[in-house]
């Protein structure tokens, strides 16, 4: 319904002091629009991920000041700005001299005395910076040498939302986000525009439900009129902001009834504005408090004021409930106040019959719904005629109760759309804005019209203290995507901007183009990815949330995988859980090199820490042949040592672990056969079984055949086998085997003449005794064959 054509940003500056208003940009492509933005505004729009202070109100404070600064620049006069920052944990000091001047944040240290000798920095995971503050040496003995301060540059934790709640939201939003991404990937482009918004709406509803469950009736239900206001879950600005985005961008079905949705929205969130300035909600809360003590409500002007205000913003159920408290309803009064009661009831009926252009209403809400414009118009005319008729009725003359007469008449004027009365009974511009939709311009459609109306309302009700939601509303109405982006990211943080972009791109082609355009000046990344990367960095700053960062990173085509690799490289692999989780993430994303690197780190660490078994295991997992071969070489040193050596047990297990996988090099093959040989040999030495002896001989032969058996081990192996060669019962080696060994011995004798030959630590007669044994064996073998 409402067109999303780019249009010049309109000047809200006088009323709202909007900082972007002086950067009005003519309609053009996204690139032009961006380049015409001053560095300052795009800074705030896109890269202002820093220093979202835990206390949200604080961020708000900065905003207020900056806004006022620009307002000063725009209008040349200082608007009355009140600061609502009471928190002192971080005093943000914006510099006014130059809008590009960075903010200064204090870095608190405790036991040190300035000046500091040195400050050194190191980035930890995510957007965490660790600063070492090192004390000058000259300071007294008692002082510590320095301290390390950890600074979380983007913080999820906000004043209105605790850290644990944030984590719940972060974890809860992963599934809807991932689902939407996969739907997007499946979506063929022709279907894209048609029913895409339905998926987005589903996503939006799921995310919204994470942000707390408000009853749609808001917290203004006056159930039992004399009872204290029902205490419900405090709404958050975050939820309010999310719903705004949903109303304007995602919900295509209710495009025609945006005013009605805004009305509901205000009913839920008007209380947020009460914190800083008078609102209808605050007025009702006040009156509720007094109501308990009032005997005759209709005599109290506040009763009538409260009702007028509630009526103006369309909280019809509350008005009707309050009307029913009117004294004329009491049984003892009915007789002499009949006319008066009749008038009260007539107004109550008119209010509850108010035509509403919306598909349906929650049960407790009043009014009559109409779906189509003609039906609604017809009903509206009829309803207005009834009001006019009542207004001109003669019964008023018979009503003796002055306050009742005036109060009711005033309410009729509200319903008839009397501008000045509407302005009197509302407080915040947005309340006036809503009352205009209800009673003056019920057919307002299109953002341009809404924007003009909002401008008018702001002019009538200038506000001294900006709520962060105001910036967002203004941006939306102005159709200024950059402002919407800036407000989302600055006021509501990286979580909000990352997830709300899905709504924005679904609802606005202009936004979609802007967000998906490659930013060549920033390495070709697009804005959507940029925000996801920033959010992923925030997630990875915390040990409890880092493992959901990959979901967001893998949704970034261009730079996500690069950042994911860097994130994984920084995981502490000495923690077993972290290691397993990281390997799993690598497996899912086909990052084999990264996972084998982590296994390698773990293997080397285990090796150095004496856990040789797990070291070999991890190095094998990493397929790190270089290191495995180094380990195999270390094991070689045991070869040729006495069979009774205790260390056999030690390395036996390692060889077992090293295995005989074809991928690992020849050295390991040798070690395996050697281990079998040693085992059989041990058995031979223990008891004399021919079986074991036969096995030992087989191993010996295969060792001698194996080209990877180092030459320096030949003689020790043969020398160790003397007992086998001289086997009493029968020769263990056949003729050809004996020839093989003799040949090897011959080769060895030749090699001894070469200069590079390494002499092994064996008795000098070793070679001869082996030769003798082999000759002996050969003779017996020939006889046997």
């Amino acid at each position, binding site marked *: 319904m409402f067109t999303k054509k780019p249009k010049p940003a309109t000047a809200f500056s006088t009323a709202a002091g909007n900082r972007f208003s002086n950067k009005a940009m003519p309609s053009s492509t996204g690139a032009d629009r961006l380049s015409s933005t001053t560095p300052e505004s795009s800074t705030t729009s896109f890269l202002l991920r820093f220093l979202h202070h835990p206390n949200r109100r604080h961020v708000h404070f900065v905003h207020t000041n900056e806004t006022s600064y620009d307002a000063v620049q725009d209008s040349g006069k200082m608007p009355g700005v009140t600061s609502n920052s009471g928190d002192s944990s971080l005093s943000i000091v914006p510099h006014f001299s130059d809008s590009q001047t960075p903010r200064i944040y204090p870095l608190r240290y405790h036991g040190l005395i300035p000046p500091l000798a040195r400050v050194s*920095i190191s980035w930890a995971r995510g957007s965490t910076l660790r600063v070492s503050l090192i004390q000058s040496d000259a300071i007294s003995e008692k002082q510590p*040498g320095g301290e*390390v301060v950890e600074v979380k540059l983007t913080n999820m934790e906000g004043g209105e939302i605790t850290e644990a709640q944030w984590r719940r939201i972060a974890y809860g939003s992963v599934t809807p986000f991932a689902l939407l991404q996969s739907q997007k990937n499946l979506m063929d482009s022709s279907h894209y525009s048609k029913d895409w918004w339905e998926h987005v709406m589903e996503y939006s509803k799921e995310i919204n439900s994470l942000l707390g469950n408000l009853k749609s009736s808001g917290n203004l239900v006056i159930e039992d009129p004399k009872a204290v206001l029902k205490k419900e879950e405090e709404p958050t600005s975050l939820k309010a902001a999310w719903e705004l985005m949903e109303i304007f961008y995602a919900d295509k079905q209710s495009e025609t009834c945006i005013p009605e949705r805004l009305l509901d929205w205000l009913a839920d969130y008007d209380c947020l504005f009460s914190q800083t300035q008078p609102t209808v909600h605050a007025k009702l809360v006040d009156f509720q408090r007094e109501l308990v003590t009032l005997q005759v409500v209709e005599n109290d002007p506040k009763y009538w004021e409260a009702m007028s205000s509630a009526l103006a913003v369309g909280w019809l159920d509350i008005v009707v409930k309050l009307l029913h408290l009117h004294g004329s309803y009491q049984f003892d009064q009915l007789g002499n106040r009949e006319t008066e009661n009749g008038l009260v009831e007539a107004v109550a009926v008119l209010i509850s019959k108010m035509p509403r252009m919306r598909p349906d209403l929650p049960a407790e809400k009043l009014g009559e719904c109409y779906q189509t414009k003609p039906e609604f118009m017809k009903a509206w005319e009829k309803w207005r005629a009834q009001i006019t008729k009542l207004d001109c009725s003669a019964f008023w003359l018979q009503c003796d109760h002055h306050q009742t007469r005036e109060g009711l008449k005033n309410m009729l004027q509200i319903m008839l759309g009397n501008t000045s009365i509407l302005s009197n009974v509302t407080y915040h511009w947005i309340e006036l804005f809503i009352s205009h939709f209800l009673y003056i311009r019920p057919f307002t459609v299109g953002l341009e019209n809404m924007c003009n109306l909002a401008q008018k309302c702001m002019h009538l009700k200038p506000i001294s203290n900006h709520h962060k939601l105001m910036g967002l509303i203004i941006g939306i109405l102005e159709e200024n995507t950059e402002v919407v982006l800036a407000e989302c990211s600055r006021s509501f943080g990286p979580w909000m901007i990352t997830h709300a972009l899905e709504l924005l791109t679904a609802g606005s082609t202009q936004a979609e183009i802007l967000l998906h355009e490659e930013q060549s000046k920033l390495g070709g990344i697009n804005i959507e990815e940029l925000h996801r990367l920033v959010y992923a960095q925030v997630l990875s700053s915390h040990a409890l949330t880092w493992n959901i960062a990959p979901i967001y990173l893998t949704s970034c085509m261009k730079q996500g995988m690069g950042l994911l690799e860097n994130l994984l490289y920084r995981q502490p692999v000495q923690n077993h859980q972290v290691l397993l989780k990281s390997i799993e993430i690598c497996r899912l994303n086909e990052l084999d090199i990264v996972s084998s690197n982590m296994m390698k780190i773990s293997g080397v660490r285990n090796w*150095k820490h004496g856990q040789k078994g797990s070291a070999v295991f991890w190095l094998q997992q990493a397929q790190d042949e270089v290191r495995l071969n*180094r380990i195999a070489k270390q094991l070689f040193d045991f070869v040729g040592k006495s069979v009774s050596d205790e260390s056999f047990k030690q390395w036996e297990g390692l060889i077992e672990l090293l295995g005989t996988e074809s991928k690992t090099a020849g050295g390991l093959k040798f070690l395996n056969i050697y281990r079998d040989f040693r085992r059989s040999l041990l058995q031979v030495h223990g008891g004399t079984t021919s079986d074991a002896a036969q096995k030992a001989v087989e191993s010996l032969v295969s060792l001698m055949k194996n080209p990877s058996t180092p030459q320096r081990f030949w003689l020790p192996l043969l020398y160790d086998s003397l007992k086998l060669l001289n086997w009493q019962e029968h020769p263990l080696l056949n003729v050809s085997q004996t020839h093989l060994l003799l040949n090897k011995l011959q080769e060895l004798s030749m090699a001894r003449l070469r200069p590079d030959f390494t002499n092994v630590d064996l008795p000098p007669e070793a070679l001869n005794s082996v030769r003798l044994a082999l000759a002996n064996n050969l003779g017996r073998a020939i006889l046997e064959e």
Partner: protein
Amino acid sequence: MDKTILILDKGTTCTAWNYSGQRLAAGSTDGTIAIYDSTDPASSIFNCTARFKVQESSILKVVWVPPEYGDAVACISADGTLSLWEEVAQDADVLLWKLCICFERNTSQVLDIQFGDSHTCLKLVAAYSDGQVKIYEVLDPLELEKWQLQAEFQNVIDLVSKFGNASCSAASISWNPQRGELQQSSFVLGFTSSVPLLNSSKVWEFDQDHQRWLPVAELALPEDKSDQVFAVAWAPNIGRPYELIAVATQKGIAIWHVGSNPDSNGRLLTEKVAVLSGHDGEVWQMEWDMSGMTLASTGSDGVVKLWQSNLNGVWHEQAILAPSS
């Protein structure tokens, strides 16, 4: 937002975090190194788990060895020596820090060191006070005791020039943080010295075919070539078509774009995209975050500054972190 996570010993001169930010090594004036550990990645409680004496003289700089080679640190002492220490299990599985190697030196002192190329063969670049640059390679990936000198050269773009009596007071080295088999080994290096030609930052790349190091780029405009370099920092690259290197001189912090493909002379295309008025006086250190989008710097004005580029490619100072009690 800010939180003190550990208190350092008296006399601490320098600190270094390991790859995962779970261990801190702190050197001090009496020549000892203290190791602080956090066992659980979720906690930020750090305890001192080891203390060992390296030298009699003060420790100037500590650098962790890449984790693929174990838990080890290299330290530069005030007397100019460079030694490598490693945490290993002794008998009965007690972990001890032992000396792996003390690098030989002549009269010159070691000014800066950095490890690189950890995926293939660990290399160590050391810059010396006589203007020499030495590159050592580890021989056995499981033993940090044995190193061999792979190359030795001076930081000049024209390979023929030699300066015999250079005297340098500081140097800064930064490896290209990119991992991967295909990546050429490269690093950037700048000096503060008496010989102007040695000063400017140069990008050195290992030429695999000829097995030698070649200067492939000089990060200084013709008029700035003799400027002394305080610090260099090579940014992680998660997908940019160009590399990003920050160079700090007395004229400020310069941000350079360095292209990836060499021209016919073997030189890389370079473009100085920003000069930021850094810290009043010397810049002590510069570090890029893991996305390579934010640069943090410290200097003699005692504050930490954060720098970023906006979407128009305009670099600006994003925030200042000012220590205060």
